[in-house]
């Protein structure tokens, strides 16, 4: 189910912990203003489609952008239909997987979770 804020449908939402980590990695790269995460889908991976995640402070005009927890979530326009309703979380700890996508559109995912099919 798509997630909405004030009636606006989000392509991708991010958890508070994921936002904190994005800001942490952005600061390490010298980004403090306009911090965002660009999310897209590319062909490839074991199941056919794979996530592409970039921490950036540069907006792409055609992206769908919503700010959450102080981070701009920018979704590539062509990837949007594959990502509607997806939540980006962060799996912490010794056996954590880092950034993890929870995508309701994914019918199948590969073992490592970075690839999916719809």
């Amino acid at each position, binding site marked *: 189910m798509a997630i909405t804020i004030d009636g606006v449908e989000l392509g991708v939402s991010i958890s508070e912990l994921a936002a904190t980590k994005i800001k942490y990695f952005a600061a390490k790269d010298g980004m403090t203003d306009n911090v965002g995460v660009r999310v*897209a*889908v*590319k*062909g*490839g*991976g*074991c*199941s*056919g*489609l*794979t996530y*592409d995640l970039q921490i950036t402070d540069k907006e792409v005009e055609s992206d769908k952008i919503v700010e959450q927890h102080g981070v701009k979530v920018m979704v*590539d326009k*062509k*990837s949007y239909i*594959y990502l509607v309703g997806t939540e980006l979380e962060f799996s912490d700890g010794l056996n954590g997987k880092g950034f993890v996508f929870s995508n309701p559109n994914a019918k*199948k995912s*590969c*073992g490592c979770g*970075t*690839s999916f*099919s719809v």
Partner: protein
Amino acid sequence: MVLQRSALPTVYSTSEEEYLALTTASGLHNASYMGRLKATGDDGLDLLNRLSTNKVIDLTAGQGAPTILTTDRGRILDLIGVVNADEYILLITSPGAQQQVIDFLDKYTIMEDLTVEDITEESSMFSVLGPNSQAAIESASGKTLGALPTYHSLTVEIGGHEVRIVHRPFGDLPSYDMLMDSDATTGVWDYLTASGITPVGEEAFEAARLNYSVPEYGREISEAYNPLEAGLIGSIDFAKGCYIGQEVIARLDTYQKIQKHLVRLEFSEGAAVAEGDVLTDAGQEVGKVTSVTNIPTGLGLVGMAYIRKASASPGKVLELVAPSSGQAEITALPQLFGPGQE
């Protein structure tokens, strides 16, 4: 109109003469029935690298490699040649598989810059095969090919026409493809035959294909098999990262879970055998014949089959089942691109 393999002349002179030319000198085969695609855009190699079994991302102009498009279950959709032709990427597909390959690439092109067009009809393709094929091409073009690695290519001029030469393996038989615009077809064919390369019809070509164990699309290459069963391990890069079907193929390799192998067969004298015939080992069915033909020089019937792993070893003699009759000896487990990475 795209040439169909079934429309090729059965013979130009005699099968014996043509087969001898292929195996002892050089033969010229019209392979225009193979598919040819032109991929343009900045992301062609990157996308192909993410979608297929081999590492193709680093191919520079003139370089090429075989790679396999597989399903998410690791089954073969097609074995294709990827050639970096500098201004575009040339993809050599199996006959009739062009649209399937285009659809597959299109399905996974989301944010990438890639356009693929079918140029099969507007181009032609010949194969020059045989131990003297390199010397014959060098003599006809006046250009040295050197030790051209598998699927690497260069352009030469033949009879006043620009031709791209691609080194495409044909088992242990040296073989080079020639690609050209379709309006050069007659000129290049005539020039090469006048230079002494023997035209080869369908019968002798099929005999060479089976004697040198080259799998064919629709027979030995199809979605019924995975690349490891088909002996195509040499076109898999196990270290390059994910691609569609990678998990399954890596697991099959790691745990040696292959159920069957493609094998080369020699049939007993007088054997009555046809494609699809069942083969047994100690009374148990172990596989079916996928291809069979007669070698014109007297070697007899040779063929290929997928045989259950436990029975797939060189020297093993299998039985044909009535109404067919005779025996089939496994002589090799062919690997078109070698044994792969050590």
